[in-house]
C-alpha cells in the first residue's frame, strides 16, 4: 500500500461518513411520519377490503341470510367455522334447516376468504375491526348470529 492510496482511502472514507451524517441530520429535522394510534382513534379508518373479523350480516330487523347449509364450514381449511343447525318442521309439514349457532373462532381464522366467497347467499362478510385482543382464550370463539335473529325472507 503506497501513501497515496492510503490517504485517498482515508479521505474517501471520511467523506462517505460525512455524507451519511448530512443525510441523517436532514431527516432529523424533517416532519415525522408516525401515526398516533390510539390518539387518532376517532379519525382512523381501515381500508374497505381489510379483513378484521368475520360477521354474519344482519339487517335492521335483526335478520340474516344464513340458511345453515354448511358450505362455509366445509370450505374452511382449518375448522374455524362451526354451523349448528336444527331441523324444524313447520305447520305445513315442511322441514327446514334453521341456524341455531354460527360459531366462529377468531383465534384460528386465517382470513382466506373462502367462506365469504363460497357462500351462496352472501350472508357473510369481513368487517374491518381490529381491536380484538382479550385476556381469555374462550372470548375469541364468537357466536355470529345475534340473539333472536332469524332468516330474512327471500324477495
Amino acid at each position, binding site marked *: 500500500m503506497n501513501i497515496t492510496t492510503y490517504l485517498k482511502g482515508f479521505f474517501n472514507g471520511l467523506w462517505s461518513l460525512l455524507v451519511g451524517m448530512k443525510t441523517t441530520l436532514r431527516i432529523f429535522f424533517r416532519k415525522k411520519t408516525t401515526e398516533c394510534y390510539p390518539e387518532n382513534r376517532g379519525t382512523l379508518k381501515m381500508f374497505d377490503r381489510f379483513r378484521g373479523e368475520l360477521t354474519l350480516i344482519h339487517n335492521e330487523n335483526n335478520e340474516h341470510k344464513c340458511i345453515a347449509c354448511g358450505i362455509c364450514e366445509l370450505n374452511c381449511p382449518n375448522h374455524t367455522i362451526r354451523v349448528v343447525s336444527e331441523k324444524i318442521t313447520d305447520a305445513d309439514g315442511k322441514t327446514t334447516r334453521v341456524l341455531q349457532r354460527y360459531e366462529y373462532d377468531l383465534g384460528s381464522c386465517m382470513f382466506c376468504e373462502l367462506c365469504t366467497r363460497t357462500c351462496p347467499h352472501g350472508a357473510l362478510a369481513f368487517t374491518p375491526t381490529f*381491536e380484538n*385482543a382479550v385476556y381469555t382464550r374462550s372470548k375469541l370463539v364468537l357466536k355470529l348470529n345475534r340473539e333472536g335473529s332469524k332468516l330474512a325472507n327471500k324477495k
Partner: protein
Amino acid sequence: MKYEDFKDNEALEQLRASGTNIIMGSLDKLIDWGRSNSLWPLTFATSCCGIEYMAVGAARYDFSRFGFEVTRASPRQSDFIMVAGTIVHKMAPVLKRLYDQMAEPKYVIAMGACAISGGPFKDSYHVVNGVDTIIPVDVYMPGCPPRPEALLYALMQLQRKVKVEKFFGGVNRKEKKPEITQVID
C-alpha cells in the same frame, strides 16, 4: 382510550378483585405505573407475525411512544415475550426455555392465530396448538397476521393488566418459580 372502549374488562375486574391491600395500594400503584410503562419486549419472532411486529417498531406505528422500543435480545433483560408466529414441536422446548430465562415479572402475548391455536396449521403433525399449552399467556391477539394497530391495542391491554397487579398485596400470577437455566449460547 377510555376504559369502556376496551374489550374483556370482566377478566380485568376479576384480577382487580383478588388480593386487595389498602395500605400498600399507593406504592403498588407507583410500581405498576413503572412496570406498565416500561415493558421491554424480547426480540423474538418465528414467522409472518414477526414482520408486523417489526413494522410496529418502525416509523409509521412506532411503539416507542409507549416506551416499548427497548427490545432486548437477551431474555434476562426483557419483560414480555411476544410469541409472534407458529410454534412447532422442535421450537416448543426452546420457547419454554426462553420463558424460563426471563426475570420476573414477565408476561406473554400470543400474537396471531398460530400462537393462539395453531391457526392455519392446526392439523399439522408438527405444530403446537396454542402456546398456552406451553407457557401461560396474558393477552391473546387474533389476526393472521394482526395489523400493527391491533398489536398496539394488545400492548395497551397488557398494560392494563399490569396496572391491576399487586406487588405487595396478593399474588396474581400463581406460578411456581421456574427452574434456572442458561441462556442458549
